């Protein structure tokens, strides 16, 4: 492992405070890092690829490296396809998570004299990539889509150096990978500005047995990291957790975040097929090493599926349940969605005494062009991984993509969506503070807006709590925040009480409603129910169905404009579970919906005067999800299940 020798800023300031410096004249302090013990919301992306990822290099026109990725995310202007681009609004934090398999190797193809270029496979790849690139330097795979030899070569490279099906990387490639990893660490450290912009040393472990994703991002807490454990080392998630435990003993704290469960064909949160191996030790190891799961990103949401939640009229949202390789085949929804996993975890908890699926929620972009964009207007269908400025699709490309080739690899597909965001409630914008929020699951996800919400639960939160100016301090004192565990129920309490506060993105749409999603287990069976707890406007629930009518849609499909004339700026309430039964293990999470706004595919169609996209809605209700709060039955109520249901 190459040691990074660029001194991280934190170390430099630590040096400045060491006693040997005390003789130096006192320096006026640099602006102090802002600390709020009651925590602020910070927004970032924990999932982004650059040209250091093998697939990104092959697919993409763009040569953005991790350094440029960080600089763009923090609001700097970067060069992009020859033109300057700047993010609409800076992010507060970013983890570049390049695929660890053959990380950074193919970039060496840019140099015709490099050993990679001069190797057999490199020579072939250079020729193939040249055939798939337009004269203006942009990748255009439509040039080779009829060339079976091209695709055979592409697939072979994928298999041998990336997919983990075999490892044929020559020793030289591995050396290139190690050097690239040292640079990744260096880029992350160099772009870390405590109090302003936080970076994390991170990578993606890319295990995809039979094309079904069980990928995990690995996020390190500190400024050093060992060489990555890759899917070429093992494709088994448990082997990754074992490795995380091993390196933790050596002082490297890290956690794994599974993602794209929706594309896992049911194996991400599988338990029916996995009953043989799920025991208490398995559940505890999984929980200890992956406290979070990605609930949404460009390749779809993993919250809920209409087939698993037929009573949830909002479950059919950005569903992208294709097997990641064979996009014509739909996956198995059971085991692929988090709401299902949360209740399965409770059943398992009653059976084995621990919950393997005790997941907090994060959102990510998973974009492969190095630039993390999260606004619908800034996403452009990800054509050859490009989205911004000069990377946006031409009218012809947009027409081809929007016309409905949803199953086509690497083209604009109207089924994907813009980058999603992770929100954290943290004391300050520093690695320690944000990593701490990730560890205690005080996180939320949004579909890309800066929607903000707090969610507390306790047994005795006062009814008038939200009217107090110091309500947040009181809520922390008397309850637990999102991601937490309710303490044991006092004898005189009836049901958990929730404090819910949500406010719109100041640059975004008004709020439609706040919902509490409750999952629980009952006699070993999974249960779910959705409660509308606060909503905008004068609407009454249908007495028969209990459903709240939909909010008005102000979107003009001719111009792509909407108006905040419906919906609310803020939605707040105190809510107690009306059907609480202390014998059931439960989990509750908050879902906030915005009013309908135009989907990116609609904005793209309007911009080019094209028909609206096929197979996707013209408008969407963007949303946010809080990490759950868990309740565990205790004492006589916690009778274990004797057998698996």
């Amino acid at each position, binding site marked *: *492992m*190459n*040691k990074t*020798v*660029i*001194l991280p*800023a934190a170390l*430099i*300031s630590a*040096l400045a405070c060491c006693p040997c410096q005390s003789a130096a004249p006192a*320096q*006026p*302090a*640099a*602006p102090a890092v802002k600390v709020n013990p009651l925590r602020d919301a910070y927004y970032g992306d924990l999932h982004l690829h650059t040209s250091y990822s093998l697939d990104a290099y092959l697919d993409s026109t763009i040569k953005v490296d991790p350094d440029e990725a960080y600089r763009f995310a923090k*609001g700097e202007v970067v060069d992009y396809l020859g033109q300057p681009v700047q993010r609409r*609004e*800076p992010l507060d934090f970013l983890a570049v998570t390049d695929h660890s398999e053959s990380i950074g190797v193919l970039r060496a193809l840019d140099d015709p*004299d*490099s*050993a*990679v270029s*001069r190797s057999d496979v490199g020579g072939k790849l250079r020729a193939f990539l040249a055939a798939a690139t337009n004269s203006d330097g942009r990748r255009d795979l439509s040039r080779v889509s009829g060339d*079976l*030899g091209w695709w*055979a070569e592409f*697939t*072979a490279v994928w298999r041998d150096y990336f997919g983990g099906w075999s490892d044929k990387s020559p*020793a*030289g490639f591995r*050396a*290139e990978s190690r*050097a690239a990893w040292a640079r990744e660490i260096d880029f992350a450290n*160099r772009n870390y500005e405590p109090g302003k912009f936080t970076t994390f040393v991170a990578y993606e472990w890319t295990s995809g047995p039979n094309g079904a994703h069980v990928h995990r991002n690995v996020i390190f807490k500190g400024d050093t990291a060992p060489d990555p454990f890759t899917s070429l080392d093992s494709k088994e998630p448990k082997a990754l957790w074992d490795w995380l435990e091993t390196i933790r003993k*050596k*002082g490297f704290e890290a956690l794994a975040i599974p993602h794209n469960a929706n594309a896992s064909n049911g194996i991400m949160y599988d338990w029916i097929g996995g009953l043989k191996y799920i025991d208490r030790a398995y559940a505890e190891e999984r929980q200890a090493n992956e406290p979070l799961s990605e609930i949404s990103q460009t390749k779809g949401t993993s919250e809920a599926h209409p087939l698993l939640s037929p009573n949830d009229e909002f479950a059919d949202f950005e569903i992208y349940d294709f097997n990641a390789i064979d996009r014509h085949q739909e996956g198995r929804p059971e085991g692929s969605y988090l709401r299902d996993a949360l209740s399965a975890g409770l059943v398992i908890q009653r059976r084995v005494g621990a919950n393997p699926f005790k997941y907090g929620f994060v959102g990510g972009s998973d974009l492969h062009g190095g630039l993390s964009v999260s606004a619908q207007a800034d996403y452009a269908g990800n054509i050859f991984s490009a989205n911004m400025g000069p990377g946006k699709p031409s009218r012809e490309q947009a027409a081809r993509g929007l016309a409905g080739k949803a199953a086509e690899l690497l083209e604009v597909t109207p089924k994907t969506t813009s980058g999603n965001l992770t929100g954290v409630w943290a004391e300050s914008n520093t690695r320690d503070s944000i990593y701490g929020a990730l560890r205690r699951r005080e996180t939320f996800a949004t579909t890309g807006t800066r929607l*903000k919400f707090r969610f507390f639960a306790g047994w005795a939160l006062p009814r008038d709590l939200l009217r107090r*100016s110091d309500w947040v301090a009181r809520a922390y004192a008397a309850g637990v925040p999102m991601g937490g565990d309710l303490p044991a129920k006092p004898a005189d309490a009836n049901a958990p009480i929730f404090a819910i*506060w949500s*406010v*719109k*993105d*100041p*640059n*975004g749409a008004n709020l439609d409603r706040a919902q509490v999603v409750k999952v629980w287990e009952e006699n070993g069976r999974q249960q779910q129910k959705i409660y509308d707890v606060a909503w*905008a406007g004068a609407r009454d629930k249908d007495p028969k169905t209990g459903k709240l009518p939909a909010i008005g849609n102000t979107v003009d499909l001719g111009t792509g404009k909407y108006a905040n004339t419906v919906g*609310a*700026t*803020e939605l707040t309430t105190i809510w107690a579970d009306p059907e609480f039964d202390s014998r059931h293990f439960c989990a509750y999470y908050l879902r906030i919906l915005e009013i309908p706004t135009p989907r990116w595919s609609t904005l793209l169609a309007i911009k080019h005067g094209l028909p609206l996209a096929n197979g996707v809605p013209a408008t969407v209700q963007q949303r946010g999800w809080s990490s759950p709060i868990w309740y565990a039955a205790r004492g006589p109520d916690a009778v274990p299940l004797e057998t698996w249901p």
Partner: protein
Amino acid sequence: MMDRRPPAGGAERPLPQRAPLRLGPLRRVLSEPLAHFVLLGAMLFALDRAVEEHARFSRIAITQDRIDRIADNYRRQFGDSPSSPQLQALVDKYIDEEILYREALKLGLDREDEIVRRRLVQKYEFLQQDLSAPQRPTDAELEDHYREHAARYRVPARVTFTQTYFSTDLRGDQGARRAAQALASRLNRRGITRAVEQGDRFPGPDDFTALSAEELLRVFGEGTLTRGIFDVQAGRWSAPLRSGYGWHTVYVTAREPDRQAAFAEVRDQVERDYIESMRTMRNARALASLRAQFTIERP
């Protein structure tokens, strides 16, 4: 997968023409018995050398010293001693590496391989950095750097204010605007400078100190408040300003134009930039001084 090799046995390419062997006088010498003897001896000697060389090449001696060094390396890296199977695996790995290393040398990779060359270059760069890392720049050096790159160290314009908020949820858009207008007039008449409790509760802080335009955009969103607050007259309640949340009247107490940052404010940033620029410069200098020792022949 398609087989991309050319068909076997293809004889399109003509074989190079060989010149006939011309031995001339050498033929006579070679026919002498003494010469046969000498030649045979020389061949045996050469064979012996080759066998010996091959034996040396293919013999890898693992000494106790080597094993100790491997174990010691592991201890330094991970803090505890390797277990016996771990040590065995490490020794095996060393043997593999040694074999690959020798094979690579045999192929001459050390002389021309790009990766090896780059590894060495990188190793050298890291060594350079290691050697110089403990040197911390003096303030004088940093101040020079700060002056030379003054344009990079500017503080954006900032505004300090208190605001009273009127919720469109509670009052409607026009109702909130009118309420802000009415309150502003009243407060200006009475000379009151803070009146948070006379509006609705804002979903954020009420008072702001030294906010930049970028921070304003993040807190209040686009709107007349973010765009107009730098033009509001200080010491007076403003006309209604719209944020992404609702209507406000603001009372600006201080405004700082954009200015050059004082050295002390940006010292950490200057230090980071300085170390980075020194690193780049040192590497360039080291390379230049090395280059001076070589004669570089170009085609």
